[in-house]
C-alpha cells in the first residue's frame, strides 16, 4: 500500500518535472480565442524606472526551476520533513540540527581563512573545538554562550569578497535561489567537504560505510529543509519571484562585503 503510494508520488514528481520544464511550450499552444488588446499602462511609460533589478538572463529556466522546487517540496520533501518532525522529539531535532551546524563550521573556517580574516577564523575555530568537545560533537552549542558568535561563510562569499561579481541569477533544483558565482562556490565547498570526509573516512572499518554515509547525507538534507521555513509561492504575492530574487541578491552582496555602486 505505502509502496504503491510512494511509487505514485515518484511518478507524479517525474511528471511535474517534465511539465514544469516544458510548461512554457504547452500553454503557448492554446492561443487565446480573442485577439490581444494593448494594456492601458505598459512598460514603455516606465522604461527609465529601474526597481529591484537583478541580472537574470535565464529567467525562463529559473522560473521553471522555481516551480519545480515547489512541486519537489509539495510531493517529496515536505511530506518527508513532516514525518520526520512527527516521529522525532523536538529535543532530538534540535540536536540533529546542532550536529550538522557544527560540521558546517568547517566550511565557515576554511572560507574565513580564504578571506584572510584572522580574528573571525580564530573565533570559528574556537567554536568548532568547543562545540565538538564540550558540546558533545555539536549536539549542544556552548560556544555561543561563551561569546563566540557564529560567522556563516561559504566559497561564494569568498569569491565575492575578492571581487568576483555575482553573475547571473540561478535557481538550483533542491537548493533554490543562487547565482553563477554562488553555485561555483557551492561546488567548491562540497568538494572540500568530500575531500576531508574521504580522508578521515569515519566509517571505513564498519563494512557498511556506503549505507551509513548515505544515511548521514539524507538526514542532512532533511534537517536542512526542516530548518528552512521558506515555502515556494506561500506569500501568495504575484511578484514573489522578483522579491525573492532581489532579497537573495542584495543580502549576498551586502554580506559578502562588496559595497553597492552609488549612483
Amino acid at each position, binding site marked *: 500500500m505505502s509502496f504503491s503510494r510512494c511509487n505514485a508520488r515518484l511518478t507524479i514528481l517525474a511528471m511535474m518535472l517534465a511539465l*514544469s520544464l516544458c*510548461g*512554457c511550450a*504547452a*500553454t*503557448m499552444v*492554446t492561443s*487565446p*480565442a*480573442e*485577439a*490581444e*488588446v*494593448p*494594456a*492601458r*499602462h*505598459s*512598460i514603455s*511609460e*516606465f522604461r527609465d*524606472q*529601474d*526597481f*529591484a533589478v537583478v541580472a537574470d538572463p535565464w*529567467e*525562463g529556466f529559473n*522560473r*521553471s526551476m522555481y*516551480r519545480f522546487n*515547489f512541486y519537489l517540496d509539495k510531493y517529496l520533501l515536505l511530506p518527508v520533513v513532516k514525518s520526520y518532525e512527527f516521529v522525532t522529539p523536538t529535543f532530538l531535532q534540535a540536536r540533529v540540527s546542532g550536529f550538522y551546524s557544527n560540521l558546517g563550521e568547517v566550511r565557515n573556517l576554511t572560507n574565513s581563512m580564504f578571506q584572510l580574516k584572522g580574528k573571525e577564523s580564530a573565533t570559528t575555530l574556537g567554536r568548532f573545538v568547543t562545540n565538538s568537545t564540550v558540546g558533545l560533537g555539536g549536539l549542544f552549542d556552548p560556544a*555561543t*554562550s561563551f*561569546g563566540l*558568535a*557564529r*560567522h*556563516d561563510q561559504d566559497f561564494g562569499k569568498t569569491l565575492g569578497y575578492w571581487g568576483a561579481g555575482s553573475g547571473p541569477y540561478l535557481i538550483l533544483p533542491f537548493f533554490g535561489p543562487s547565482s553563477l558565482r554562488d553555485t561555483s562556490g557551492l561546488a567548491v565547498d562540497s568538494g572540500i567537504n568530500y575531500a576531508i570526509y574521504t580522508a578521515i573516512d569515519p566509517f571505513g572499518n564498519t563494512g557498511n560505510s556506503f549505507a551509513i554515509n548515505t544515511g548521514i547525507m539524507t538526514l542532512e538534507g532533511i534537517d536542512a529543509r526542516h530548518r528552512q521555513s521558506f515555502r*515556494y*509561492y*506561500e*506569500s*501568495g*504575492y*504575484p*511578484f514573489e*519571484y*522578483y*522579491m525573492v530574487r532581489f532579497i537573495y541578491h*542584495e*543580502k549576498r*552582496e*551586502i*554580506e559578502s*562585503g562588496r*559595497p*553597492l*555602486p*552609488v*549612483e
Partner: protein
Amino acid sequence: MITVKIVLIACLVLLPMPSFAADGGYGYPIPGTYEATIMGTPAALMPTLPAHVRTRQLVLDVFPDREKPPVFFYDEGLHCTFAYQTHKAPLVFLIGGAGASDQADRLITMMKALYQAGFHVITLPSPTHANFIISASKSSIPGDLTEDANDLYRAMETAWNKVKGDIEVSEFELGGYSLGASQAAFVAKLDEDRRVFNFRKVLMINPPVSLYGSANRIEGLLTQIPGGAKKQGIFFNRMLSKFSQFYRYGNFVSINEDFLYSVYLEKLFTRQETAGLIGVSYRLGLAGMIFASDVMTNSGYVVPKNRVLSPTDSLFDYFLVSTHLSFYDYYNEYFYPYFLKQHPGLTKQELIESESLRSIEGYLRSSTKFGMMTNENDFILSKDDLEYLKQLFGERAKIYPRGGHLGNLEYKDNLAYMVNFFKL
C-alpha cells in the same frame, strides 16, 4: 551577542523616559510615528506567547466553479489559519490590514495571544491580498467596503462550515486591524441582517476613517522622496546602499534583529526617508493587488486584454508597471469606472464617501458591541479623523499616546487590552 541585544533594548526602553509621567506610564518605547510603524515592537516587549499552538491550515474552495488563470496555478483556494481549543470556546475571526496574508506576523501574534487566553481563532487574508482576489472575491476588484464585507462574510461562512464539526463554539467575535478594522465594521453591520454569527463583540484596531483619505496620506509619504513618487526606484536603491555601507563599516555578523536595531538607533534614515520607505512598501503591496485583479478580470489595465500568461512567463514588466501606479491611478482608472458601470450617474465624491466609517456612523455610534484602539500619532489619520473617532466611539475608544500605525499592536499592554476586550 546577547549582551549587545540587552544594551540595545535598554537604550530603546530608556530613551523616551521623560515622557512617561505625562502619558500614564505607557511603556511602548518608540516615539516617532514612522519609526514605530517600521520597527514594530521589540521582541523583549512582547508578551510570552505559546511556542506551540494547535493550528490547521484551511484551504477553502469558496467558488467551486471558478476557473483560475494558469499564472496563478499555485492558488488552490483561500488560505485561512485556524487555531483551535479542545474545549468549548468563543471563536474569533481576525482580518488583516491592506496586503496582509492569513499568516501576516501581526495576525499570527494576535492569534497566539487569543489562543493562549482560550479562544478558537480563524485568521483571514485581507481582501486586497492576491489570494483573496483570486479565490474569494466575487468581482475580484477590491477596495469597496460593502462588496469586501460580502466577500468576507461568505469566506467566513465557508470556513465555519469546514470546521464546525470539529470544535465546540460558544459564540462568535470579530476583530481587524487597519483596513481590516474598517472591513470588520461593515461585516458586523451585514451580520445584523444575516445573523449567521451574531457577533458578540467587534474590535477595530487602527482603523482609517475614510479609505480615500488614508490612502491619500500614505501616498503623501512618497512625495517626500526627492523627485516624487516616480523616482521611488532610485530612492530605494540609494536607501539600500546606505544600508549596505552601514553594514560593512559596522562589523555586523549578519542582517538580523540586532543590525536592524542599530539602524534605528544610529538614525541611519532621516524622517523623510523612513516615510518614503513606508510609501515604497505600500506601493509594492498595491502592485500585487492591481496585477492580480487585472488578470482575474481581464480588464487590460496592466496586462494586455485576452493575453493568457503561463506559469513560467516573465512578469517583470508588469511588476515595474504596477509598482509605479499610484492609488489615484487605481481609483480613477480602474476602481471608479467599474462602479460607474454598475451605478450609472455615481460621482467620484459619492463613491469616496461610501468608503468611509461615516457612511455607517449611526450603527457604529449606537452598537455597544464595538471597541476601537488607535494611537495619537497614527499617520493614516488626520487630526479631524482622530477627533471623529474619539467622539464616535466615546468610552469604547482606547487611544494610546504613541505607536504610529500598528507599531504597538504587538506590545504587551496592547495585546492584553485586546484579549481582555474579547473576554469581557
